[in-house]
């Protein structure tokens, strides 16, 4: 079963709509036991890294997620802030994050670009088990972006004043800074590739 983590600042219902549109069923998960039997776990993201980490802690989900994703290798998709909290640290409210991917999250330079980045940007995704090398336009809303330490963890890049990591990937962990659930047919296509894996 596909599980979508439903926390207060997230937009789990929008992700559920997109999953349903692709013909899959999914359940929203708010408690540890609701993650049992997950084939795919999606962590949507809206809001700040700090608030998201607090929500996950308050819901006592971190240990269960680490067990399922890091030990059991359950397929995982993080979206937007759901990508950012995978790194070790975010500048946003000085937040210590999950650290599944080495590196940190920093703010776009306001002297160069309008912050937040808001709109459709072209992403170049490198080949992965779910996709060939491809370019397409996806919808972004972010003031912060990931700086993975290991270049091998970068799955996709886009340009906003400078090149930045638009998607990261490591083993069974996939994550997009853009909103796959709100990126039209391109987003649905990528989500479909993840779900069919």
């Amino acid at each position, binding site marked *: 079963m596909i599980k979508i983590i439903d926390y207060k600042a997230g937009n789990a219902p929008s992700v559920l709509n997109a999953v349903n549109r692709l013909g899959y069923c999914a359940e929203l998960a708010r408690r540890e036991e609701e993650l049992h039997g997950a084939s795919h776990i999606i962590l949507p993201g809206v809001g700040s890294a700090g608030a998201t980490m607090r929500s996950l802690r308050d819901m006592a989900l971190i240990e269960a997620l680490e067990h399922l994703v890091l030990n059991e290798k359950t397929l995982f998709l993080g979206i937007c802030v759901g990508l950012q909290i995978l790194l070790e640290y975010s500048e946003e409210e000085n937040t210590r994050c999950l650290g599944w991917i080495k590196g940190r999250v920093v703010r776009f330079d306001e002297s160069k670009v*309008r912050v937040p980045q808001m709109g*459709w*940007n072209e992403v170049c995704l490198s080949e992965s088990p779910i996709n060939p090398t491809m370019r397409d336009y996806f919808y972004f*809303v972010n003031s912060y972006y990931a700086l993975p330490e290991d270049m091998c963890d970068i799955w996709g890049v886009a340009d906003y004043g400078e090149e930045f990591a638009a998607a990261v990937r490591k083993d069974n962990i996939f994550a997009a800074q853009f909103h796959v659930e709100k*990126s*039209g047919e391109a987003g649905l296509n990528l989500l479909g590739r993840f779900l069919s894996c």
Partner: protein
Amino acid sequence: MLTKRLIACFDIIDGMVTKAVQFQDNILVAPAEEMAGAMYDAQIDELIFYDITASAQKRPIDIETVKKVARRVFIPFTVGGGIKTLGDMYEALKAGAEKISVDSMAVRNPGIITEGAKAFGSQCVVLSVQAKYTGLTHSGYEVYIDGARLATGMDAVEWFKRGQELGAGEICVNSIDRDGTLSGYDLKLMKLAERAVSIPVIASGGAGAPEHLSELFSETQAQAAIISSMLYSPRIERNYTVRELKAYLADKNIAVRPWKDNNSGKNPTI
């Protein structure tokens, strides 16, 4: 590279899309989710819905319509009208909206911008400003509220800046003078806005032809444009498709998300 956005904006009354000219004489066009679906299929970049009678009728925003739209479209959409409290914002976001637009209510209670930004993030809060050239304020542009009927005496440019300070993530600048006139955006107003703030600016009011869009994007740093009448107003002589507008802008070297033939079933690859 981040592209310029084309946004379709719908005024909703009882779940039906309407189109107003200078905020008067609403005419019904179609159910909101149908219109939203058609615009999604046409590859519009974003949608905005204003529940325009919610405030006057003292009721919250029409959540059922928001939910219906969210099940049909997979692009960002903003909702406004009848949003008074954090609870109203939360309900609209949970129903599937990405952003909440605040307008008259934010003039009366600016603190709601900050509260919304703190609770859900700045990116969720769009400050919508109705501005009219009256020559009575510092910039000459004055903020109006309540469906552009009531002058506030506030300077529009000062309000844009204050909105950003309070935590808005985007400013939608509506020119009352140009609304429904199809004579082009108020470029002077849009320039004042984008220079006053560092957050994205959406230009609204006046679009009637493709060249109005290319003027806007080449002469100002506005990041998005509302193009409602051009797309669907039955009152306009010639409607344009999103595909035509995107092709026109691309030809003028303006970065847009290209229209794509989704029926081919293939994604572009390198």
